């Protein structure tokens, strides 16, 4: 029981991932699909960030004066690399969302709707 609870960060990640994935598959509205896609991506960002975090760990920025003299740090540092990676992934996510929304604007101009089944009907008619 304890191990299940202590892995709560993974449960959050999995819950968000499945929520996002479900929205992408189940919703007809294209904007909602994009929101689902965002939740799905962000759950993965959380997965990365939580894996780098150490309990009581702090940001590895500068050594304290006394640590410099002692030659070894008195604090525990978290791994900064996953956070840095996710900074890049967030940028990619923003670009994807922007492109998706731009496409939705164009789809709305061309079809007059952003509901997937109505677009499908119009495509079948033409």
């Amino acid at each position, binding site marked *: 029981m304890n191990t299940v609870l202590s892995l709560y960060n993974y449960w959050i990640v999995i819950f968000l991932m499945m929520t996002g994935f479900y929205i992408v598959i189940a919703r007809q509205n*294209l904007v909602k*699909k994009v929101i689902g896609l965002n939740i799905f991506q962000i759950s993965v960002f959380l*997965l990365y960030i939580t*894996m780098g975090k150490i309990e009581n760990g702090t940001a590895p920025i500068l050594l304290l004066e006394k640590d410099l003299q002692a030659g070894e740090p008195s604090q525990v540092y978290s791994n900064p690399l996953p956070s840095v990676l996710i900074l890049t*992934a967030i940028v990619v996510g923003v670009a994807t969302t922007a492109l998706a929304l731009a496409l939705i604007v164009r789809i709305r101009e061309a079809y007059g709707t952003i509901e997937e089944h109505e677009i499908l009907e119009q495509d079948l008619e033409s």
Partner: protein
Amino acid sequence: MEQHLPVLAIVVPLIAAPLCVLIRQRTLVFGTAITVCWATFAMTVLLLLRVVYCDGSDLITPAANVVTYQMGGWLAPWGIEYRIDSLSVFMLVIVSGIGAVVLSYAPLSSAREIHREQHYLFCAAYLLCMAGLLGILVTGDLFNLFVFLEISSLSSYALISLGARQSRKALTAAFQYLVMGTIGATFILIGIGLLYQVTGTLNMADMSSRLSENGEVFNKVVLVALAFLTVGVSLKMALFPLHAWLPGAYAYAPSVVTAFLAATATKVSVYILLRLVFTVIRPELALQLVPLDKGLMLLSLIGIFVASTAAIYQKNIKRMLAYSSVAQIGYIALGISLASVSGLTAAIVHLLNHAMIKGGLFLAMGCIAYRLGSVEIDDLRGIGRRMPVTMFAWLLGGLGLIGVPTTAGFISKWYLVSAALEKDWWPVAGLILIGSLLTLIYVWRVVEIAYFQSPVESAEPVTEAPLAMLVPTWILIGASLFFGLQTSFSVGVARRAAEMLLGVVS
């Protein structure tokens, strides 16, 4: 200068892309972009000479010859490393070569199919896409691979949506591809994260050695990571049954974009699969965890038959060729699933051969679309007499697709069948041949309409496509014939790459 070649091949198109947006003026933009593409091609050829013919004499050099480049001088496991071996250099030459040929064809074709005020954006997105694809091939760092994958994918969604001038369906096709592509890329990101979690490194070579040292300890995590990675990559390479985005995207994108993406994008995804399964996780561990080879074989065989049958029933020829691409990816995956040197050789040779054949076929369709304004099969009656040079190129490409002897397609089918027979898998070899018959049916359908039916009375007279479009088409088709007759280069490099992937020293 020469030691910076690996990074220059990426940086030059990457910088040229925003430059195109700044220049804006149509002729100058196309001039810049085409020059950059050919310069990149020249750089990759130099790299090929360095990796494959490193002592300047002959092909007999160590299989493990690699060119490495440390980004910013940071050493390998910490810094980002560019690592070029015989497989990546082979793919680099394919991607940059096809990219240069197709872009040379673009000025005329895009004048008909893309809004004039979007031409500079088209060039920018095209260069970005090429930089992304080349980046995937050179990088030795897993996270870097993800970033390059997203650069190429995002620009390809934008490229496909440029087809909106012809049909609004291009927009929905691009959106569908965006959703599925992003899910695929995110799956890959999860897989990379899990591998990083257990190994603490992102460098492929470093990760591979750590996994082979303590592979058993990480079994479960590696298994989950492998599952996410294969599903994500299969989505990107449109392996059956994850190919749903491909026919729409290829059918409604402008002809130039379809030719470029069909010849390169899915091939680079196949490269990612090879890289992940054979050099990062290693086949010993990967195949021991899951029967990946059997699953891949089953899916690729079903894919060949379902997609070829679907191709027979298409009215739009670009859509038909798109389904044929799904089937051809099946042949490549089949070669990989054999997991032997000859199977991988067949798969890698087919990467090159199919890239040339399918690129040539889509360019020929682009010529027809340029003159006729349509690629529906009914509008093509008698086109063989009205545009003989274009249609003859299409015919030769079609024969290559079937795998008629003396074409490049025959070489890859030959190696694939002999690889299956090597394992005594007669049924697989038989199915490959039956699959070729299905290809014959859909190619013949077009040939019959084009050559043996007379044009509709009311049809407007059409002339042959302009020379500036015919030359690039014939370069690709000619190359596919050349590599059908002269196999020592293509098969030689492919075999070397296969031996390197499987760790066999020749």
